[in-house]
């Protein structure tokens, strides 16, 4: 028993130092050298100003930008939680109903053929993280009509930008393709600055 206590106490100290301090600091050192931008959050700078992270979604307002998915956390990057909307909840029905209505109200004036059954699910449901950086390709293609009209661009040009800012599957196989909304909007601002 006494031997166990002594070895145990020494183990607690040694393991806390080795696994809790040395290990993370070594990994930090290597990651900072090998993946400098990524280790610090893949931050995106425009004219010296940090405008976001390419991995973290943000909320976009106004008609001149592509819009991100609904979020339970208002795109908080420092206090995250799940929406916890249940499959049989009245709250869930109301949330989807409202999101559907506002999506149609926003996009239908620019895409006359848009109907309920063409609205992709990502556009009206909350993501898990609250900061989903992506929207689906279908969602982006619908919104492209609005962007083209508001920014006075040919639709084909906007659609090309959508394709250029789509993150594909890993090895063409794993995950789902998603359009990175921040990068797409940045590309838009660069190509056709808002007046």
């Amino acid at each position, binding site marked *: 028993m006494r031997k166990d*206590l002594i*070895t*145990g*106490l*020494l*183990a*607690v100290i*040694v*393991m806390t130092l080795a*696994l*809790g301090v040395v*290990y*993370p600091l070594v*990994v*930090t050192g290597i*990651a900072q050298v090998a*993946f400098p931008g*990524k280790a*610090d959050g893949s*931050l995106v700078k425009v004219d010296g100003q*940090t*405008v*976001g992270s390419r*991995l973290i979604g943000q*909320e*976009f307002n*106004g008609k001149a930008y592509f819009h991100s998915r609904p979020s339970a956390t208002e795109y*908080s990057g*420092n*206090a995250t*939680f*799940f*929406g*916890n*909307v*249940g*499959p*049989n909840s*009245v709250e*869930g029905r109301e*949330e*989807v109903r409202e999101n559907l209505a506002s999506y149609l109200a926003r996009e239908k004036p620019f895409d006359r053929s848009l109907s309920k059954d*063409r609205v992709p*699910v990502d556009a009206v*449901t*909350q*993501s*898990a*993280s*609250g900061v989903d*950086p992506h929207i*689906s390709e*279908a969602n982006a293609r619908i919104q492209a009509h609005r962007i083209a009209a508001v920014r006075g661009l040919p639709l084909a040009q906007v659609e090309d930008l959508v394709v250029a800012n789509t993150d594909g*599957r*890993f090895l063409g196989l794993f995950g*789902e393709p*998603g359009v990175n909304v*921040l990068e797409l*909007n940045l590309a838009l*601002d660069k190509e056709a600055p808002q007046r």
Partner: protein
Amino acid sequence: MAQGWLQIAVFAAVVVALIKPVGIYMARVFSDQRVFLSPVVGPIERLTYRVLRVRPDDGQDWKAYARSLIVFSLLFWVALYLILRTQGIHPFNPEGFSSGPWDLSFNTTSSFITNTNWQYYGGETTLSYFSQMAGLAVQNFVSAAVGIAVLAALIRGIAARSGRVIGNFWQDLIRILLYILVPISVLAALVLASQGVIQNLGGAAVVHTLSGATQTLSQGPVASQEAIKLLGTNGGGFFNVNSSFPFENPTGFSNFVEMLLILLIPTSLTYTYGRMVGSQRQGWAIFSAMAVLFIAGVAVVYAAEQHGTPAQHLAGLHTHAFDGSTGGNLEGKEQRFGIADSSLFTAVTTATSTGAVNSAFESLTGLGGAVPFANLGFSEVIFGGVGSGLYSMLLYAILAVFIGGLMVGRTPEYLGKKIGAREIKLVSLGVLVTPLMALLSSGLASATRAGTRSLYAGFNPQGFSETLYAYLSQANNNGSAWAGYTGFIQPNAPGNVGAYGISFADLLGGVVLIGSRFLPIVFVLALAGALVGKKVSPAGLGTMRTDNPTFVFLLVGIVILVGALTFFPALLLGPIVQSLTTRLF
């Protein structure tokens, strides 16, 4: 869905391909043999023995092994609790967080010592980097090593032909850490960092968004913790929303790596087992039983999630897939993972006792949500936690042998060792203690005012699911959650100012966590002690074989039978009601 099934099939193929090499490697580590890392790690290993005053050649019987394990875990419990209680005075705390409430610390400490990582707290809003690194992540390594050590001891008990020794706890612990967990974690952390998982010690980054708002992005040493969180089937996220947060799991590739890390050790251990007991077929039989249950779970959750929810359909949403849209129930899921990878992750994390999530469980469909319930209801034997999954499954294997023996009227034997009254008593205790803890605690929490304070969804099937899952998850040392269920209120998030714990949930949970981890461990070690000295009788014509499809079928049946008998009435009130109705409440 074809694309999704293909992803799942290829992932499974990669997992299976790694079983043999990793299984052999671990068998060599457990048997004190040389491996390719020995030239580098060997000197560190010997130095560690010297510093910790360990004599690796001193074999321990089961009581000595159990005593070392419990003393060690108890000391670490105290150390972690103290770290959490004194958070304010530690370095690496750029946000200046003070300690949270004591009852929350009690729950969190118990949760991490037991390889559970149930989280009432939100990582980025309550904990300093020091608490995460030197407190929680250390336990991610250590508690995983403890689980694997117990398995190694049980295998030796089954395999040995004489004596009383089942190994040396300290040697097992140190070798598992140095040869298995640390090297793979370093490698995995860097792979994850290459994908964009953050790894720094700076304070939160404040950015100015294109729409003119400010967004604060929490930072921290995430990649190093993420790797062992998954490899050790721990599951406690650095961030509150776990592996759905892009800084923890940014791409389809990182998601693939994370799922692979979860299954790597639990699946390969079946091969290790076969090798150490001298019959590879025994290992594959256990693996096959696990695989059957796992595949069934994946299929159900994927199909259910692709269908969408009653709430979505009643709102007029069409949840079919079409070009450019995954369709399905994307509520609480990320676009980059879609339905297939979210469903697969859900099955992987609940079949093993990991509990990391890349989607929100509370938003799963009724039927899809029944899969995590079932996986936990089967007491985490479908691959299960590192070590703990296989040692729990071996209890079921012995139970299956016993029941099979009763049916054909023969003395039950497992691998040539007679299963007597003492063994079957220990097996029964080991099998029953977890469900007992889960049902008693969730019953207590459902029936009392103090317990229902934790509800988010209210007094309906969803609320009952929250409660049942909370205690099921803690009793099975899983750690995933119907996350509406709360034991911690943080009115001024982030930071711990004004925050308080719901003591009933925190304390009951803490007791359940500890009881359902360490009681089975003691029973398993006692079983190892009971088996170790038994003579092996040669297999004859009348011996019930434990390495053929019939036995796999029997084993699967026993697991389902015990799980269903225990939990079916409770599941009726929650997920089953929800999957049978299209009504809202």
